[in-house]
């Protein structure tokens, strides 16, 4: 009834390059994209519908500090890539160095975001959908950011598995892209 495994057959899935976990991550990434996409789209739609954006009685979100944080998370992404390629070449010290840099720039991003948010949030952000959307988008991204950062930290001390290292670096890039989209939606 059941043939043995010696029978020749072609089975494409196993010859593919992505591992199971990577495939899983890509599928969940599609979901994440839809989640953040929906939120950013809502923000843009609200903006299109509203004649005065932001309204005069609402302080608009400062863009200087967030531009630096954008820079920081971009740099962090670069360091993660560097660190990962160092890991692939088995250069442990280079990996540690770049990975640490990535974590530090990540922390810098977090700090800058916190500064921007706390300096801006001196009024009741619930007053207008502009301010509440901006605060919500940044905080919601922040929650995922904390998750990503703890992943990087974990991998710094425990870099045994290349596969999960790759996944965390992908997640980190994704967070960067999401932040860029949010920043553009707010700034434009």
């Amino acid at each position, binding site marked *: *009834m*059941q*043939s*043995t*495994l010696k*029978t*020749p*057959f*072609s*089975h494409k*899935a*196993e010859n593919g*390059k992505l*591992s*199971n976990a990577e*495939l*899983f991550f890509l*599928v*969940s990434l*599609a*979901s*994440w994209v*839809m*989640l953040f996409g*929906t*939120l950013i789209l*809502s923000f843009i*739609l*609200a903006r299109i*519908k*509203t004649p005065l954006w932001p*309204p005069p*009685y609402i302080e608009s979100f400062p863009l200087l500090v967030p531009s630096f944080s954008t820079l920081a998370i971009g740099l962090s992404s670069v360091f993660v890539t560097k660190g990962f390629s160092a890991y692939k070449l088995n250069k442990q010290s280079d990996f540690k160095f770049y990975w640490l840099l990535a974590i530090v720039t990540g922390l810098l991003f977090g700090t800058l975001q916190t500064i921007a948010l706390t300096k801006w949030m001196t009024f009741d*952000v*619930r*007053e*207008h*959908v*502009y301010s*509440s*959307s901006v605060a*919500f988008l940044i905080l*919601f991204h922040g929650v995922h950011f904390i998750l990503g950062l703890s992943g990087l930290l974990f991998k710094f001390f425990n870099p045994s*598995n*290349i*596969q999960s290292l790759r996944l965390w670096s992908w997640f980190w890039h994704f967070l960067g892209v999401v932040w860029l989209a949010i920043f553009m939606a707010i700034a434009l």
Partner: protein
Amino acid sequence: MSTHSSNNPQANHDEHLHAEPTTFISKYLISYDHKVIAKQFLFYGIFWAFIGAFLSVLIRWCLAFPGEPFPVLGNLLFPSSNGIIPPDVYTMLFTMHGTIMIFFAITPILIGAFGNFCIPLMIGARDMIFPWLNMLSFWLAMVGGVLMMASFFVPLGASAVGWTSYPTLAHSQWSPGMGHTLWLISLFFMGNSSLVGAINYITTVIRLRAPGMTFKRLPLTIWGLFLTAILNALFLPVLTAAFILLLLDRTLGTSFFLSAAISDVGTQGDPILYQHLFWIFGHPEVYIVILPAWGIVSDLLSFFSRKPAFGAMKTAYSMTAITILSAVVYGHHMFTTGMSPLLTGAFTTLTLLISIPSGIFFLNWLGTIWKGKIQLHTPMLFSLGVIITFGIGGLTGLHLGAVSTNLILHNSYFVVGHFHLTMAVAALLGAFAATYFWFPKMFGRMMSEKLGKIHFWFTLVPILYIFIGQMVAGYAGMHRRIYNPYEYNYLKPLLGLNIYIGIAVFTVFFAQFLFLYNFIKSMRCGEIADSNPWKVGTLEWTTPTPIPHHNFDTIPVVYNGPHEFSNPKVTGRDWLSQTEFVEGVSNT
């Protein structure tokens, strides 16, 4: 470094192996085994389906006998009003009926139970690719269920804003109390449960197909479940986002969906935004619910006609086309919100385009039973029932897809009848067909055919009466969600019709106890089933019954399609297993 990408073809299948559980708790409660999780989902779904059905009985009681106390249980349930269902409770009833039936009954049964049970067995895998996530999916659903149940008992009662939960009614100003907040949190858990499951299903179907199991040889059941999983993975996050924003509005006092005209502060939210987000998810949700049933029915019709599924690949491609189209037609739910005329034309056209692929697989179903050797077993009867109910439901979709007629019928009972026939009745009959069909593999015993057939007739006939009657009432002007339609003069003539619909509902409700009896009794003392009682060739029937912990000792190799029936080159019997190699029929 990873040892994964070796050349050993067994690697994928062995990777997720886990030890056979020994204790009761690890075997039945926190099991990683997809078969046990499937059963958990099945019991969970049946439990909630009965609660949802009971709520519908209460609803129909209101409409059929307005102002009469509910018999027997009335005084127990509504002591303050002498057994009469009060209007505020009525609002909760239909809200919870919709929510429970969609998210807690049909989804767990079709996707949770049969998705979990069929996918690994039918593609020739030992388990889902991420068993831990599979368990997580069930326990998230459990948390959601507990929260939803709790929302019945909080002060001011359960959610009472309709299952669509439109703001601004869903804001705390107009629906105070914990009920709706709990509802949102609970559905957040349910959504994530489905999402985790869906991601797992997609990865499993892509990765764990047995050697030779190409997409062309995939049973249509798996096609349906796979497409459903894709829709779930893409569109549940949209709902989650909408619910998060609504939850913030309710709890923290933001105003994403609260308009400037009515709130105290100068906000500029928009309640229509929620409707867009909800229906971007909501229209695919219809297909999320019905696609597994389509797949199951396409397979069962072929199995019990003893002939290959007519145009099987065309069926699969039409289902794929519908999956893609479903993402871009949601606008017909919002024609009455004063949409731009350009958009209404586009959405009408796109919506009506769905009838082309639907027509193709529908006629393929007819083609399958044409010139077959039809065995009218219970699963076959239910599958034929799906053809009829989905036929009516699908055809009446034309009225609602076109903007001219939509403006008459929107929010009327015509809509209620239409969507019940498509996504509720057709999906539920499909679930019954699946239950009767896979019961022997799940529990090792046959369900009673005789009880099953009585159950079928007492379900199909009244259910057609109910929902065709509702469509008639809808065209006569009866609108949705009203406690007492007879407040309106033009609805007074409909009392007679509503009484008969009520009686039909009570009949269907009691007929389901027949199913429950059959289900529970057959589990313990039904006729012992052999490993392939229906004589079909898909992979799950090549396993012994009861199925061993890891399904397949060696991963089977697939040579044939799933519907090789009555092949003239096979002698002695009219079916061929997918794993059998017959010269001239099979190829590697």
